[in-house]
């Protein structure tokens, strides 16, 4: 990244020394994990560029948008409806982070046995290394798991613009009514922030932008059914991660361009790994940039990842929003319907997720499922057991992994993943 960004980072209040250190680690990790892969699609060069400029050019774009009067809204969860944000000409960015940072400082505010995802968001904030947090005009927290819910009480003291959205825990009529009430309240908050009244036309446009982004991701996912897989799981994960940061229209075009290339590859029978390489479905907690540890271990152990049952993956992008309504009310109803189907583990009971995992394993012709649970993430770790049981009933092998962002267990994980690959081969 060029020197030009220094003053921008400074004006955002970043700690330049710490930020440089972070970028260095990120760059090195990207080099070792991403650029070291063989036979990547040429279209991935777009994502290489995005990643190299993730704290540079992209932030400059956000700054330019802000200068033009547009707002930036940050979120930690796929339950925050991006359609509403886009309808108010605001920019939506994901704030979840995938690396340990300033852990000592974090542990002054949060218990040690808090999951890495939450700690990381705090660490990036306390360490003043995340330009996305600093540039956000509104940060949306949401009541999903207890860890996030309670940590927002603390985060409220650290950021000036936290908005907390309540979420249901059961898929009942009452739950849906709560979601609807919360989305209407959020719409009002966004309207107030942006001074824009969201009418039906705007909402339709917002839905269209986000649906197009999802359609491109669905197309990418569909191409991974091929054997040999035309794209690595790491690269597909990256596309799903960048989903949360990039300009949505440009993102959609770039993913579609890669899909064109992948279709040609499939026609020629070309892939990133040989035909017959064991195929893995990853299921569980979301993986935010730069949390590439487990996919990297899997794809350097003789297997290829063919799908992600995750918020950063199919759970987050699964259904399109119905855009056939003509009034704000009808369109909002479509948004509520779409998000209410998200099968997050905070819901109880949550049988849809088990069905989706089995269905995805079949659709993507996975030989086995690796369930990834973040240490201390109760909802997903608890569900890991019924997931394993449901898969075993269908004779689909399952390996349950519990880990965090640290690298100390890489050796152990490698042995377990390799042994699992030997088992499914």
């Amino acid at each position, binding site marked *: 990244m060029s020197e030009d960004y220094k003053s921008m980072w400074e004006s955002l209040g970043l700690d330049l020394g710490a930020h440089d250190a972070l970028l260095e680690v990120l760059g090195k990790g990207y080099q070792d994990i991403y650029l070291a892969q063989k036979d990547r699609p040429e279209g991935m060069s777009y994502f290489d560029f995005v990643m190299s400029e993730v704290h540079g050019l992209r932030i400059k774009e956000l700054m330019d948008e802000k200068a033009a009067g547009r707002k930036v809204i940050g979120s930690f969860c796929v339950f925050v409806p991006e359609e509403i944000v886009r309808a108010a000409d605001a920019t939506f960015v994901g704030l979840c982070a995938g690396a340990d940072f300033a852990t000592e400082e974090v542990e002054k505010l949060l218990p040690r046995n808090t999951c890495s995802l939450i700690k990381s968001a705090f660490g990036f904030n306390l360490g003043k290394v995340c330009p996305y947090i600093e540039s956000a005009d509104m940060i949306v927290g949401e009541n999903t798991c207890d860890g996030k819910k309670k940590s927002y009480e603390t985060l409220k003291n650290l950021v000036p613009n936290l908005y907390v959205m309540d979420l249901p825990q059961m898929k009942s009529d009452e739950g849906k009514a709560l979601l609807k009430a919360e989305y209407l309240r959020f719409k009002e908050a966004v309207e107030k922030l942006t001074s824009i009244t969201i009418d039906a036309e705007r909402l339709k446009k917002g839905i269209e932008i986000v649906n197009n982004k999802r359609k491109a991701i669905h197309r990418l996912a569909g191409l991974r059914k091929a054997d040999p897989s035309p794209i690595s799981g790491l690269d597909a994960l990256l596309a799903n991660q960048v989903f949360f940061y990039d300009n949505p229209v440009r993102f959609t075009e770039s993913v579609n361009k890669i899909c064109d290339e992948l279709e040609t590859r499939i026609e020629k029978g070309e892939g990133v790994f040989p035909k017959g390489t064991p195929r893995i479905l990853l299921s569980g907690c979301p993986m935010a940039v730069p949390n590439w540890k487990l996919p990297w271990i899997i794809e350097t152990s003789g297997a290829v990842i063919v799908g992600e049952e995750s918020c950063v993956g199919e759970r987050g992008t699964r259904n399109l929003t119905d855009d056939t309504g003509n009034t704000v009310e009808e369109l909002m109803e479509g948004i509520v319907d779409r998000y209410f189907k998200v099968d997050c583990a905070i819901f109880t009971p949550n049988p849809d997720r088990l069905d989706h995992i089995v269905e995805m394993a079949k659709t993507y012709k996975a030989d086995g499922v690796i369930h990834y649970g973040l240490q201390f993430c109760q909802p997903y770790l608890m569900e890991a057991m019924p997931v394993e049981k449901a898969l075993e009933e269908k004779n689909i*092998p399952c390996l349950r992994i519990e880990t965090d962002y640290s690298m100390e267990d890489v*050796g*152990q994980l490698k*042995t*377990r993943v390799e*042994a699992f690959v*030997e*088992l499914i081969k």
Partner: protein
Amino acid sequence: MRYAGIDIGSRTIELVVLRDGEIIETKQADSGFDPMAQAKELLDGVKHDRIMATGYGRHLFELSLDAPTVTEIKAYAVGARFLFSDVRTILDIGGQDSKAIVVNDNGRVIKFEMNDRCAAGTGKFLEIMANTLGYSLDQFGVEALKSKRDIQISSMCTVFAESEVTSLVSRGESRQDIAMGLHRSVVRRAASMLKRVCVKEPVLFAGGVARNDCMLHLLQEALKKKILVPKDPQMVGALGAALLAGKKDCYCHGSLPEKA
């Protein structure tokens, strides 16, 4: 053809050489601080046509000698079935980790569990505890079997267990009773890991810790199942690797080069 298997563990390295399906040579060395140098020394003068590596140091070996590798899990399963053809469950407690492996009727691994991260409940734990009580590793199990009173040791963490032992000693508890309590705590952990994979009989107990009679006794008591222990429990992984080196079509990580 001579096929060799080398198991580079955290504490020891084992080497097995097979000719026409028979073990013709076994060797062992400490892993020390430079396991690759130790492994090379162990191989010095050992004739073999093909070699396969397993264990914690397998990737180092793969890089340095361009040998194919296999995980300890598959290696132990294959080695165990060679020794006892009807084995269905394998418990391996090694220096730094422990594993429970279940195979189907054909010997294929169908499920496994491994301890994560720390060395709680492994050979290393027993070694440090023996040391704390002033026993040699060989004495440790023998003395524990002489215990007359049950003592509960609740800490599985090596560091906490050490201070727990110290406080039991200062309370005047006998060394033998404390030793028994420590063995029991390791067996509790191993048994729960075995139960997670659904133990099927017969069970084979392998790895260095299988040499400890007290462990075997307690494990039999906890599982109420028939438990087999091979003559050389530490060699099972290297044996499995040697057997796999002899199979051309076997799936493993890396290539299977023919040695001149």
